[in-house]
C-alpha cells in the first residue's frame, strides 16, 4: 500500500487522458456518438455510465476469485446488467424526460464495451479500491469526452449550449442555457450522424496534436529501460 498514491495518480492520468476510453481505447463509442447531439445528453449518459462502471468494477473485483473462467463473461455481464437495470429503473422513476431522451442507450450501457473492457482488463486483476478508482477515472474521462463532443455538436448544430439542462438537473438549470448565436441555418450536419463521426475525428486529432506538442515542449528526460542480459557478462 505504500505506493498507493502513485498508483492512484497513474490511474487518474491513464483514465482521464493517456488511455482515455473514448479518445484512445475507442471503447464505448456507440453511446458516445449517438447521444451527444447536446451537452446535456452527454452529461447524463456520462454520469450513468460512470455509476455503472464504478459499481461493476467494485463488484467484479470482489467476486473475481470465485468465478471459474468458463462462465467469467456471463457472470460479468450479468453483474453489469444488474447495475444497468437498476439505474435504468431509477432514472425512469426520477429523471423521466432525460430517460426518454437517452432512449435505447440506457439499457445498452450493458454492452458499453468500456465497462466490460475495464472489468476484464483491470477489475478482474486488481483489488477493489484500485478498481473503484479506476472505474471512477475511466468514467470521468469518458464523461469528459461525451461533454466536449456534445458541446461542440450543440454549438455547431444548434447555436446553443446546455439546451435542455433542466431535464437532467431540474428546473433551475434552465438558466444554464446559453444561446451563443442564432442563425436561421445552423450547420445541421453537426447533429446528424456523419457530424458525430467527423467532430469526433477532429477531437481525437486535437488530442494527438496536444500530446505531440507537449512531448516536443518537454524535452523528455528519456527513461531508459535496463537491458536484460541473455548471457553472462
Amino acid at each position, binding site marked *: 500500500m505504500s505506493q498507493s498514491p502513485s498508483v492512484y495518480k497513474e490511474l487518474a492520468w491513464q483514465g482521464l487522458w493517456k488511455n482515455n476510453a473514448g479518445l484512445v481505447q475507442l471503447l464505448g463509442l456507440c453511446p458516445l456518438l449517438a447521444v451527444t447531439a447536446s451537452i446535456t445528453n452527454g452529461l447524463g449518459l456520462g454520469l450513468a455510465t460512470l455509476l455503472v462502471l464504478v459499481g461493476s468494477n467494485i463488484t467484479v473485483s470482489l467476486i473475481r476469485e470465485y468465478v471459474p473462467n468458463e462462465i467469467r463473461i456471463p457472470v460479468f455481464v450479468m453483474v453489469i446488467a444488474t447495475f444497468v437495470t437498476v439505474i435504468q429503473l431509477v432514472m425512469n422513476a426520477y429523471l423521466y424526460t432525460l430517460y426518454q431522451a437517452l432512449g435505447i442507450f440506457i439499457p445498452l450501457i450493458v454492452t458499453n464495451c468500456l465497462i466490460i473492457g475495464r472489468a476484464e482488463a483491470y477489475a478482474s486483476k486488481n483489488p477493489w479500491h484500485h478498481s473503484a478508482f479506476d472505474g471512477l477515472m475511466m468514467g470521468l474521462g469518458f464523461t469528459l469526452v461525451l461533454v466536449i463532443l456534445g458541446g461542440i455538436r450543440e454549438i455547431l448544430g444548434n447555436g446553443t449550449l446546455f439546451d435542455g439542462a433542466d431535464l437532467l438537473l431540474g428546473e433551475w438549470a434552465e438558466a444554464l442555457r446559453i444561446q451563443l448565436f442564432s442563425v436561421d441555418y445552423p450547420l445541421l450536419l453537426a447533429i446528424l450522424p456523419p457530424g458525430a463521426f467527423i467532430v469526433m475525428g477532429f477531437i481525437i486529432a486535437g488530442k494527438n496534436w496536444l500530446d505531440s506538442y507537449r512531448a516536443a515542449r518537454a524535452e523528455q528526460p528519456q527513461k*531508459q*529501460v535496463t537491458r*536484460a542480459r541473455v548471457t553472462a557478462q
Partner: protein
Amino acid sequence: MSFLTALIILGVLALIFGLILGFAAVRFHVEGDPIVEQIDALLPQTQCGQCGYPGCRPYAEAIANGEEINKCPPGGETTIKNLSELLGVEAKPLDAAHGTETVKKVAVIREDECIGCTKCIQACPVDAILGAAKHMHTVIAHECTGCDLCVEPCPVDCIDMVPVPVRPDNWQWDLQQIPVRVVESGNE
C-alpha cells in the same frame, strides 16, 4: 411481477446455461497456446535483451500475455507491423526507451588487440565468436546477429560494431546514398 416466478425462471435459465457451459468447457477443452510460437517467429532472434526480457522467446511469451509490441529495436517497424497484424492490435511507434532502430551491424574483433580472455565467447548468445583461451578470437560475420552483447564484457575494448557492408547484391536501391558527388569523374 412476483419475486418467486422471477427467481425461479432466471435461476433455472442460469442453471441450464451454467450446465451447458460447464459441459462445453470440458468437452471442448483445447490445450496449449500456439500464439507464442507465432510471435516468436516474427521476432528477429537477435537475443539482444533490449526489450527488457532475456531473449526473444521470453518477450514473445510476455507479448502473448499482453505486453506492448513496440519494445524490440532490432525488429523495428517491420516487426511491430507484423505483430500488430498477427495480434490485431494497433501498430505503435517503437518505444524509444528501449533504444532506436539503427542500421544492422556486425561485431568485428580487432584481432591484434585481443588478449584471448574468452569473455566475449561467453557473452555471445549465438556462439558467433570463435577462439580458445589465450588465443586470438574472431567473429563469424554471417552468424553474428549484431546484438552487441559481446562489446561490454571485453576488458580491452577491442570489439567494434560496424555496419553490415553494402554489396551490389544486397544493395537496397538507395540512389541517394551512392557517393556520386564525392567521386569526381575521370576526365576532369
